[in-house]
């Protein structure tokens, strides 16, 4: 008798497993709606180079003197902090050159610089992303790529460009940050700079300017 019960139980359990393979027949009633979604994200992108950058004093010697393209100077010790600086001088000694390395990098080379030498860089930032942007801040890097200054306002910045421990360069940023650009718009940005007395002799100065832009709705003035 006991064997018979076990046999029946085995058949019952086997039946349960077999029925379970029939699927929803024993599940709850349901109905399902299906959604197919496609997603694309936008692009935040700015670049240099639609309009070429220009530098105020690209004229190097000769001649040094007399010249029709004289240098401009700041105070060698105080830079822009001295009154009435910069001002024109009577000699043509230093010069500058700038070019776009790639869409995101602007290279500035200064030749025969000396304490007090002043120049001015003008460049354009072009928006080619699909998301509106704002200019947010500028990072200045030296030839080795090290960050020497982070510029967030149109005020005077003084920093050590060659890593010798002494501040030898000043930048006076000329434009407000927060300029808003939509797709295909561009804006003109410029800044003046001068060198201070600790600047070492016979050195070649290269600086890189990183213009950092941010999506317009995340900008914090």
């Amino acid at each position: 008798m006991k064997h018979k019960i076990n046999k029946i139980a085995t058949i019952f359990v086997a039946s349960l497993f077999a029925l379970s393979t029939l699927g929803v027949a024993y599940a709850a009633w349901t109905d399902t709606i299906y959604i197919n979604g496609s997603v694309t994200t936008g692009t935040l992108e700015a670049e240099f180079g639609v309009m070429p950058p220009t530098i105020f004093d690209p004229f190097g010697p000769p001649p040094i003197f007399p010249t029709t393209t004289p240098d401009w100077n700041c105070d060698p010790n105080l830079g822009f902090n001295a009154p009435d600086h910069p001002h024109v001088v009577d000699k043509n000694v230093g010069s500058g050159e700038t070019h776009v390395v790639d869409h995101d990098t602007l290279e500035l080379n200064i030749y025969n610089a000396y304490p007090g030498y002043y120049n001015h860089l003008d460049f354009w930032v072009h928006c080619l992303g699909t998301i509106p942007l704002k200019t947010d801040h500028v990072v200045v890097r030296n030839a080795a790529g090290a960050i020497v200054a982070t510029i967030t306002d149109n005020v005077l910045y003084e920093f050590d460009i060659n890593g010798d421990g002494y501040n030898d360069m000043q930048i006076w940023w000329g434009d407000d940050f927060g300029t808003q650009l939509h797709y295909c718009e561009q804006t003109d940005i410029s800044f003046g700079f001068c060198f201070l007395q600790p600047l070492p002799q016979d050195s070649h100065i290269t600086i890189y300017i990183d213009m950092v832009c941010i999506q317009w709705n995340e900008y914090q003035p």
Partner: protein
Amino acid sequence: MKSAKLGVMFLVSLMALAGTGVAFSAWTDTITIAGQVDTGSVSWEITGYSGTYVYKDLGPKDLDDIVVVSQMLPQAPDHSWKYGIADNGDLCYLVSWCYASAGTDDHNAVMDYDNLFPLTGVGGSPVFCADITIKYTGSIPGKINNINFASDIPGDWLQTLINKGYITAQYYNAAGDKVGLGYQLHCGDTVTVDICIIIPQDNTLMSHSGSFSASLEVIQWNEYVAV
């Protein structure tokens, strides 16, 4: 031996009598019941579509107003235009948009999200939501049971967003109150389902495209198990 012979005769007699039919059955009478059974249904269908349009206010440049418009549209909007007028009269520029539209039948919808970027609303709430309105048509009460998301390309960036909870569903009843899974629907009730996407602040998520599928299930109310 004799009893065995009798047994055989008895069985043969039984089979012979069985062949003669009811003549030897008991008297009977039968009442017949004709039963009809109609089963109910658990069903719903999509009846409406809407989307979200994010405009940038082109008023004075120092105004950073983001104008978010969500509206019911009978069909996919025409995006050949990019400008509109905000409530304050300023010209607006359409930056991003998402909308739902009809699929192959009333159980399928298509949702498109274009030019998304990191943007959240008050309290980090999602902004980019495409919406469908679903009408419950079943005769048996149902409850919203579950929704499952899956990127069409396993393991891609969209699947990562799904896994991290950046793609979510939000449910609103006809009164506009927020409801959730387990919300009960009777025949004729409607519920609006927003499928919302948040793009986190991550530069690697620029210029991406992908697709996902979602399945939204309603279950008979008495079988719903809260999770």
